[in-house]
């Protein structure tokens, strides 16, 4: 119905539909958003799968991410090179995981990556302190930060190594009823 779009081939749209939680319309809309971030860099015609990556600075300026204290970590977790440069594939992937239909396990995996600031596959005390400071905009006193981080690790750490592995994190997330609704960006 209406105009036949020439941004993606039908094959590509099917692939995107099967690999993400978006419908065709939403994928085209996402492409529009991606394009307007850098109109001169992003081609309108994606039928040949062009290799185009947008830098971190452009992506974190999106209104949905601009005020998020974890915006840099979010974009870095989804970029292949770990520096925050997103191709369109990774852009769609990011919003697919953060959409409301993604299951809890998938979101937990990426949440763990986001909060793991030093990328060592563990949430150690420094990671927690950084998270807390970003959350409260450094309004807590250092003693309070220390206390909260210590209590948080005590509560969630199951294997007693004073840092949270992915299993600890996931176990704690399953008991949090709000996780699915807060770890969600509407686009």
């Amino acid at each position, binding site marked *: 119905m209406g105009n036949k779009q020439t941004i993606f081939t039908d094959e590509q749209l099917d692939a995107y539909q099967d690999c993400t939680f978006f419908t065709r319309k939403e994928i085209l809309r996402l492409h529009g958003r991606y394009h307007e971030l850098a109109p001169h860099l992003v081609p309108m015609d994606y039928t040949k799968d062009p290799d185009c990556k947008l830098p971190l600075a452009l992506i974190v300026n999106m209104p*949905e991410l601009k005020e998020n204290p974890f915006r840099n970590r979010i974009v870095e977790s989804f970029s292949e090179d770990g520096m925050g440069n997103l191709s369109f594939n990774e852009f769609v992937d990011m919003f697919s995981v953060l959409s409301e239909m993604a299951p809890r396990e998938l979101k937990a995996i990426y949440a763990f990556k986001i909060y793991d600031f030093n*990328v060592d596959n563990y949430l150690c005390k420094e990671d927690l302190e950084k998270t807390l400071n970003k959350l409260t905009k450094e309004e807590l006193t250092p003693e309070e930060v220390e206390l909260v981080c210590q209590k948080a690790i005590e509560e969630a750490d199951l294997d007693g190594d004073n840092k949270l592995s992915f299993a600890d994190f996931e176990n704690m997330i399953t008991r949090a009823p709000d996780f699915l609704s807060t770890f969600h960006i509407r686009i």
Partner: protein
Amino acid sequence: MDSDPQGLSMVYDDPEGNGYLGDQPSLRSQQASSRASNQNHPQFNWSSTPAEKDEEDGGGPPRDLRSSPLPMALKRAVRQVQQMQVPVVSSRESWRRNKAKSLRKLKDSIRGFLYFFALWRKTLQKIGGNFGGGVQSFFLFLRFLVVLNFVSFLLIAGFVLIPSIVFRSVGTHLVNSTGKEECMQYDPNPQGLVLFYNYFLDLLSGTGFMEYSYMFYGYYNNTLVEDRNFSYNIPLAYLFTSFFYFAFCFICIIARMGTAARVAVATGGSAVGNYSMIVFTSWDYGCLGDQATKLKQKNIHYRLQVDLEEESLKKRAAALTTKQKVILYSLRVLMSLVSFGLIIGAFYAIFLATEFSQGKSGQQGIMGLIYEYLPSIVITAGNFVVPLLCDQIALVEQYAPSTTVIVALFRAVFLRLVSLGVLLFTLWSQITCEGDKTDKKCELCYYNYKNYQCWETRIGQEMYKLTLFDLLINIAVLILVEFPRRMVVDNWSCKLAQWMGRQEFVVPANVLGLVYGQTVVWTGALFCPLLPLINTVKFVILFYCKKITLVHNCRPALRTFRSTTSAFFFLVVLAVGWGLATVVLVYSVAQIHPSMGCGPFRFSPSMWLIVPTTFNSLSETTKEFLFFIGSQAFSIPLCVLSGVVLCYFASLASVYGNSVALLRAQLKLEGRDKQFLVKQIEMLGQQLHISKPSTGAQD
């Protein structure tokens, strides 16, 4: 001594499983190298066959791909490979797969269609982004009620209203019957000339021109149409539509509760794990805008402070001496009695006001209007004053902050719903002379025919007045209290204004108001069939009023309401309101004698008795079938079967609960095993290191 990463990989290596966990050794060994390597993502296990994967999940490969934590390019490559690998399956299996695929496509297209039709979607998104999940859950609840009321109105219109209009315009087929002449007098039409402003007063109180109209029960006739191949029984339709309306509302509430309950049960509702949950799950990623973000941060800060404070309070409470504890508990009991006494006082005031108002009914003019609205005024005043006083009492009781909130909520719910019950009880005692059939007034017609020629219409009018008054009060508060308050706070910089601060949008109080309004509508739907339509319009107006006040006058609450558990709680309170309305419905259908001068049940001793009379006129086979279903031979085996199924599900649930607890314990043990093994490896490494130099020295 240097720790051995390769040795660690012996412990952690998991060649078979999920790609993510098996990736750990390679990540840790690569940590020294630059971060700009392609190790940010787990590897995919190419060797696993698609057939294995399909057995695990019923949805086929595409569902598995969506939920796998692989980068997009990898997912597309996997999809291509899977599509090329045509698995050898039976024709039945491939038919099943194709059916599943087309079903999924259908579901997706339906989802896209409904997405287009969802009411107020963008507004709700904006509210959620700026004010948080708690406030958004209030507006979602309001939207649910609007849709529920509108669909119920369509039901009532289709089965009762439109047939009545059609039959009335075509010609009446009234069933006449002899009865007591005195009881059948009903004269709602006003005598003589009616002044213009009386129309306005009649609109507000449901009397006059509104009384004898499709609005109220009294206008409907006991029409019985029986053509050659078409028959329609209005009284039966009226009764069954009411029953079906109640059942439909209940099913909607339960269905919506189901999704909320699942989350609540899965998370176990444990209060432990507060700090870790606040740190990791409190940030709302959908938060938009600079203001909202700053407020969210202040909110989280406040929550952490409150939790730290609650901890210190608990420590202090545990350190109380016995004498102090005794004093505290006796104080709490005393305060509960005081608040209970306040609530009973409010009930008594409502009782007096209703009796007075019913006694003065029929008066004209503005005073008459005030007398009509007296019960509504007293109920609203009670619902405003008593919670305020109870809040002050709660300060003396010194419960923990979370307990205080719950106690205040229970008191408010009790007050609201039971005050409505008191109003209905007063009306009942007046209509049926307190159930005493031998009382002088009720002897002739089994109800107080002198004051209530058409008692159902009177009850309908009371419910109509309550609904209207609720809406008027909300609009009045918006215009007269909230806007001026904001203007005072914004423009006047004196200390009092700053201390008062802007309005806070208190979610629980607003939700209770909605539940109260909906309970009133349910109670009155039998007597005022157009009430669901009026309620739909009222709730739509309320939505826009609340949205305006939220955006312009309110600051986001520092104490937030948890969105998932609170949605379940709202529905529970709504179900309690539904229960109250059902009690009223069942009692009035079964016990009270319908008015003989008006309405579709005027010639039957009770509303329910229409059903057996119609039943007797059905064909023989239908009667036998229905008798069989109602008989013991059918219902007892059915009950036994339901009992067995229930036991099965209960035992299944307990088995799952047990296995969850066991798995958690196993997880802990495995962690400790890991630690033990790591320590062993370190010791062995040390021993090797010590023995090596000694062997080297020998050479």
